[in-house]
């Protein structure tokens, strides 16, 4: 079980978080159909570092982008997102 550095709560157990999807597979609202479906169904699976969307569901409930090595689970960053982060 990983330890995820929530930007709001500090390091917390993975069991408090829920994984949503990779940043890569976010479908923008204005994406043309073909591009949207490619993003949705043709996912990258890099053997290395990737940006992932997680949510601290059983904590502060905020969303964040976690930069994680998919083989070693080394976490190199975790940043807040959403309107609050824009302020």
């Amino acid at each position, binding site marked *: *079980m990983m330890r995820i550095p929530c930007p709001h709560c500090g390091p917390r157990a993975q069991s408090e978080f829920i994984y949503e999807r990779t940043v890569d597979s*976010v479908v923008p*609202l204005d994406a043309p159909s073909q591009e*949207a479906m490619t993003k949705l169904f043709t996912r990258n699976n890099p053997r290395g570092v990737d940006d992932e969307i997680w949510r601290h569901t059983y904590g502060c409930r905020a969303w964040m982008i976690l930069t994680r090595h998919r083989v070693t*689970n080394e976490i190199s960053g975790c940043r807040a997102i959403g309107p609050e982060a*824009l302020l």
Partner: protein
Amino acid sequence: MINFSFDGKAYTAQEGDTLAAALLRNGIGLVGRSFKYHRPRGIMTAGVEEPNALVTVGEGGRAEPNTRATDVFVYEGLVAKSQNRWPNLSFDVGAVLGLAAPALSAGFYYKTFFGSAKKWMFYEFFIRKAAGLGNAPTQADPDRFSHRAAFCDFLVVGAGPAGMQAALDAAESGKRVILVEQDNILGASLIRDPQELDAAWIEATAARIRAAGGRILTRTTASGYWEHDLVTLTQRLSEPGQVPANGVAQRLWHVRAGQVILATGSIERPMAFAHNDRPGVMLSQALCSYVRRFGLIPGKRVVIATNNDDAYKTAQALKEAGAQIVAILDARPAPAGANSGHRVYNDAVPLSTKGARHCLKSVSALVDGKVMDWDADLLAVSGGFTPVVHLHMQAGGTLDWNEDAQAFIPASSRQNVTTIGGAAEPQPIFKMVPVGKPKKSFIDFQNDVTLADVDLAWAEGYRSVEHLKRYTTLGMATDQGKLSNMAALGRLAEKQGVAIPEAGLTTFRPPYTPVTMGLLAGAGAKDAGAHVRRLALYDLHAAKNPIWQPLGYWFRPRAYPTGGETLAQAALREAKAVRNNVGMTDVSTLAKFEVSGPDAAAFLEIICATTVSKLAVGRGRYTFMLREDGIVFDDGTVWRLDENRYLLTSSTGGADRMATHISYVRQFLCPHLRVSAVNVQEHYAGLAVAGPKAKAVLATLVGEEPPRHMSTVPASIAGVPVIILAASYSGERAFEIYVDASQAEAVWAACETQVMTVGGALYGLEAMEFLRIEKGHLVVGGEVDGRMTPHDLALDKMLNKAGGFIGASGLARPALSEAGRRQLVGLEAIAGAIPEGAMLIPSEGASPQGHVSAAAFRIVEGGSVALGQLVDGFSRHGEILITSSPTRGQKARVRVVAPHFYDSAGERYRD
């Protein structure tokens, strides 16, 4: 003196005995029968690696099968039973399987799959009967299991000399230290081999660790190493089968450590020779433990076979205890062992043993090329040492090959883990080649795998170590190859013609030793397995003693039976009240979101697939939501409460999913919108009043004309502010009333009084289901099943023509509007009742073309009706089909119709 029983016979043990020690003390050599061939087996080790002496300990719900006799400490009244034998251990009918050994060779199980199915059925019967370990208890476990989290700077695993010293150094330098030891006393190898560090050192060191703030946990196994230095510990607070002192049998620790130090030592290897599995053959260090720790000698005439120096310590211990050492067979050439003072034979490799069911009688060996025999009742073997690298490997570590020790040792790791002591530096050994008959030379005692089985797997083309494991079952079951893996790997490497490190390794997975299921469940068992969400009006409902229905985490009244009614009778009475008069129900669990801000309508038109912005203030509409791929995933209503304030409702079951979806869209896709979307599901309690008299009831309650259908007004009932939504799920004129949950009781009571005054009734989920099916309304999880598009559900006319909603691009895919898709239909029984969940077939024996998603009946007139999905269903109204449920043996002929059985024009909503 402690009393215990084994296979129904009473024995006594001494304080501190393991069950294995106690059995040996009582002269019991035969303890179990082997897995496949039912060969008699004794006690081979003194630790958790024991492959043979598996017993069931305890009785009733506390019984723990497959417990290693070496890993349970005897307590007063312990009840142990041997396993895998019938009718008893000495006379085991299954042992004839040993005679059939050639038929049960490697992969025999897979080979039975070939040939006819009938043949397999025949084999299976006997295989299931004969093979196996202990039986799982059938009663519930009466004990409790707790979970605990802990944090430390240093977690030290193993309290041998290296581990204790490391824990002491860390603790005295001010670090938070946890030291764990799977045994019930500290010291590990020092207990059998004190060297210069004796019991006094152990005691003093432990005292210093504690004094420096360190925590020492005995009878605790570090069973799993997970990500980011999380280690799970399993702590036995009572022995297997024992009644725990305070009700808690075991504790599971989740320890997040800054640094993990593994001082896990090594496990001695057996040797491969013919009949090396006989009771009376024991590992050398195990024998040394029995002599020094437990003060017993389980034999009179001892032969020791070794390829290293360590076995001479056992010889020394035996000599001090007064046992007779007949011979030491040292595989190494002279002068190894020359000065030991024992009768040493060099270049000596064991060949075979002879004996009876319960004991060993003689040992033969090849000494410098010549066969020699010795009469002996105990044979101690030492084939080398395998470092315990399990946790290191679970942590994602790599291994190096140590040629001198013929063993893998820990190399690097991506986690903060270091291995010290014997696990890092195993003793050197002499590499020896087995000379006994391969067919009787066991390498995996627990799974009855011999050298010949490895050879056979190789001959049949199983080249990789992973295939070898699956084909022969080597390294499986409770010991997970702790004794066997290296011997098998050596043989495989020999066959491959490569060095052992090139032959590869199987994966080390948690747990290190077996863990009981109850421990993993902890307090989250039975009713506590899932939490319960209570309605704000729970107490009011409970007072009426309804039939409850679980719905997600909620419990909702299913029906309110009175006067001995059955569920069906009560639900029908309640549904009739709604159709003919007025009914009232709790709808608090519906998902509710308050969306406000200048961009609220724009945001809702992203979430919802229908228009929203066209709603006038005070009006509402039906809406539905799509997934990104264009499939309908929820539906509900949306209401414009104010210029920039909306209330969105959706299904109870999809509430959490919808909350996450809305949050994701808001945070990720539309961070720029000026909108607030708040989950108010539990802020509001809700009740629905439905029926021909609903309007009159409402008018009395609020003192004014109630809103017309699909309109909303703020109002006040019993002095409490409420929001009234004129919406109908039942098909009747109806109102949903939302109120601050903390003030809901007064509103409910006022409404109930009025409903009862006009002769109405409360109704539950069952009646609601009847009503909505008859009306042809959808339910999420029923008709909306994660496969249907808006077209399939005939919702496409409501789609927002302007697009821009989630799922619009997914929905544009041609396949989602092609012919041949399943479409929503109504089904009307020609005779009989339509079975829910049944398949729809055009004729007997034909392939299914759809299914029944919900079945009910016409509430007033009677007659079975249902909703279903049918291939190209929209164009097939009038067709006669069969609804068939072979599993329930139910069948009915149905006519395909439009999915509305009641007031399809919506006349009853109008005032």
